[in-house]
């Protein structure tokens, strides 16, 4: 077996040895220039030659129009360059590309700029975090990538800073802390740029943080608006909480949202309520586990849709809400599609927030069904003190944050999936800043009806029904990307980048084994007429920590970060 690790010694390789110091600023890069990222370029990011934002475009499709790598040529992919990082935690960053500049982030908030064609390191920024204990970071010390605007690059950090750096030099332009570190809050998401604002969301649903979405002036860092996700008395939804509990009610906003220019609406998903044990907080607990439709200039709520009411199973509603158009029972809808942690694939009218349809994409028993367009739960499957339940999916979800891709050509959504259930039981808890606030014990186990831990499946947007399914003995913890070449890319826990036929799911190409498993989404870009595909390997994230019976299955997956860039021979 020839591994990519071995191959990389034979190609140009950018070494990460030493690090911590900004390397020489690249004359090559300067000569190539840095193309300024304008609002117009962001609005047209879907067709840009680079990869300018988290899910490529504001709609969140992660669909690229490039056709050079297609169903016929993909078999000729080979490694162009690679870059290795010494950190042993999980790598969840999407490589962002503007011109010939590529930006990746690593665990513990290192930001690295590389030449996208050669792999040469241009500069490196290591977030200084002296005195930070990473005590309230639930699921590995990850970062999911940067945002690009003007000549700057933006990162949200585990110590709750938004940092703007000059994209060419790596020098800090401004930084602003939203909350202290280690008291419940942390940030792991890729920021979003919209209308001159940088927008981020806080994590902390496992620590009793009261979470929020925050907009800042992208040029100065000035705070613009804050959307708390659990309402204070007197605000919409306040009566869905027992008195005072909104103050430590969670509702984290830890995955980047999407934007619909046709309705001028910012969409953002909200995570689980705190504590996990719902018996301690009767009520719907808005806006946890919900989709928020927001006025982008003010953060005010236009409407909301709650995926899981009074959640007792940690079913964060943060998974990317993808903007699309679909036809259901003869009617065309401007829609959001969203594969939720609770195991249901939702199609929601993005104009008014009404449910179009919901269909299970993996076994789902906690959320039992829908009535008048709203979900209802199986109350017998609610844990309590001295009451253990068995329900599906597990708290890791039918899928976790790993983003779906929506292909407008095939009209399919490509959905990373895990087949898990769990036991869950109430347990004592109390709120203390900087400590977990759960109130449940649990164990993730296999879905008894499925012999695989994971899958990548394709779902028809018009029906919510599965079209194809690639099953995996290991969990499938990586995001998906589709292309106009008819190829869907995603990485496996065993450490292969896969290229699937977008229509059939046939495996068209599989990379040699990478140096670690993949939990990050891939990206693709064009430079000088050549299409590249980039992927970070680096196993970690929530599964090896909280994965119950999955933990021994994945424990021997090697650790360490490795960025790989492929192109045709």
């Amino acid at each position, binding site marked *: *077996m020839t*591994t990519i690790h071995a191959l990389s010694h034979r190609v140009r390789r950018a070494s990460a040895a030493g690090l911590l110091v900004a390397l020489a600023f690249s004359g090559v890069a300067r000569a190539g220039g840095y193309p300024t990222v304008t609002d117009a370029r962001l609005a047209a990011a879907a067709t840009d030659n680079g990869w300018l934002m988290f899910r490529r475009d504001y709609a969140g499709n992660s669909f690229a129009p490039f056709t050079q790598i297609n169903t016929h040529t993909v078999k000729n992919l080979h490694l162009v360059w690679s870059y290795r990082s010494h950190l*042993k*935690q*999980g790598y969840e960053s999407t490589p962002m590309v503007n011109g010939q500049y590529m930006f990746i982030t690593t665990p513990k908030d290192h930001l690295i700029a590389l030449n996208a064609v050669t792999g040469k390191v241009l500069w490196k920024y290591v977030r200084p975090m002296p*005195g*930070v*204990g*990473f*005590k309230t*970071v639930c699921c*590995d*010390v990850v970062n999911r990538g940067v945002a690009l605007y003007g000549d700057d690059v933006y990162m949200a950090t585990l110590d709750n800073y938004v940092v703007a750096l000059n994209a060419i030099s790596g020098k800090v332009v401004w930084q602003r802390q939203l909350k202290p570190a*280690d008291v419940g809050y942390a940030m792991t998401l890729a920021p979003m740029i919209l209308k001159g604002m940088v927008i981020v969301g806080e994590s902390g649903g496992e620590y009793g943080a009261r979470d929020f979405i925050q907009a800042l002036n992208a040029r100065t860092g000035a705070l613009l608006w804050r959307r708390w996700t659990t309402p204070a008395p007197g605000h919409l939804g306040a009566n869905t909480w027992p008195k005072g509990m909104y103050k430590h009610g969670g509702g984290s906003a830890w995955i980047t949202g999407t934007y619909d220019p046709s309705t001028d609406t910012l969409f953002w998903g909200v995570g689980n309520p705190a504590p996990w044990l719902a018996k301690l907080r009767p009520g719907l607990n808005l806006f946890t586990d919900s989709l928020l439709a927001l006025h982008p200039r003010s953060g005010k709520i236009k409407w909301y849709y709650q995926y899981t009411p009074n959640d007792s199973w940690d079913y964060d509603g943060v998974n990317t809400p993808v903007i699309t158009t679909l036809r259901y029972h003869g009617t065309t809808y401007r829609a959001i599609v969203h594969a939720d942690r609770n195991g249901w694939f939702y199609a929601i009218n993005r104009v008014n927030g009404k449910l179009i349809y919901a269909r299970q994409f993996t076994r789902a028993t906690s959320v039992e069904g829908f009535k008048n367009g709203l979900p209802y739960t199986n109350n017998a499957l609610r844990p309590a003190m001295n009451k253990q339940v068995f329900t599906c999916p597990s708290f890791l979800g039918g899928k976790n944050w790993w983003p779906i891709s929506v292909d407008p050509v095939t009209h399919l959504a490509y959905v990373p999936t895990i087949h898990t259930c769990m036991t869950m039981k109430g*347990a*004592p*808890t*109390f709120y*203390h*800043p*900087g*400590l*977990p606030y*759960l109130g449940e*014990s*649990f*164990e*993730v186990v296999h879905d008894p009806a499925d012999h695989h831990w994971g899958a990548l499946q394709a779902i028809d947007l018009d029906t919510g029904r599965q079209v194809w399914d*690639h099953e*995996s*003995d*290991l969990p*499938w913890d990586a995001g998906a990307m589709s292309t106009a070449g008819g190829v869907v890319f995603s990485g*496996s*826990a*065993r450490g*292969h980048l*896969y290229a699937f036929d977008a229509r059939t799911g046939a*495996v068209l190409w599989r990379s040699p*084994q990478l*140096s670690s498993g993949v939990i990050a989404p891939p990206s693709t870009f064009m430079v000088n007429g050549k299409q590249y595909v980039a992927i970070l390997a680096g*196993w*970690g994230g929530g599964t*090896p*920590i*909280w*994965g*119950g019976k999955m*933990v021994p299955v994945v*424990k*021997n*997956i*090697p*650790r*360490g970060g490795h960025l790989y860039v492929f192109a045709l021979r």
Partner: protein
Amino acid sequence: MLSLSLAAWGVPRGEAAVPALYTAAQARAGHRAYEHHCAACHGRQEQGLVGPALSGPIFASPKANYKVRDIYLFLSVNMPAYAPGSLTPKQYVDIMSFLLQQNGFPAGRTALTHSMASTSAVPLLYHGPRPPTRHARAGGGCGARPSVPRSGAPAASPHCEALVGALPGARTDPPAD
């Protein structure tokens, strides 16, 4: 009140600031249990990895304001994360003893119990390095905490970094995913 409670814990005169809450044997057993159940996420030196550090001045800081019972409750109910509550009460108490030791609490003659750990309002503060237990700290390998060197302890070796699934020398061609 403070002196009374410390006396009850068997704290020698002159060291009243740092009570002895566990025995050396408990810490040794706790070290073994820690390495098996905790080190993969928190590091073999409790230095933090994918989970937070569990010893040192940042973890056990006055600002954090942890009591022994706070940490013990979460430990015994929600850890290890892959199978919360799956260890025996003795194992949890032993691990708590080990964490106290690694945060500079001295060993004493009175054993820590589940009941004591569940109710102890003693502030969990870092009191500086303590001598290692006999188990595993001596000898080669991951024996030293670089920031808190112990007399005679070996330097940390590179392999200490590969805590979860060390890179194998040769990988075999796997089945399809």
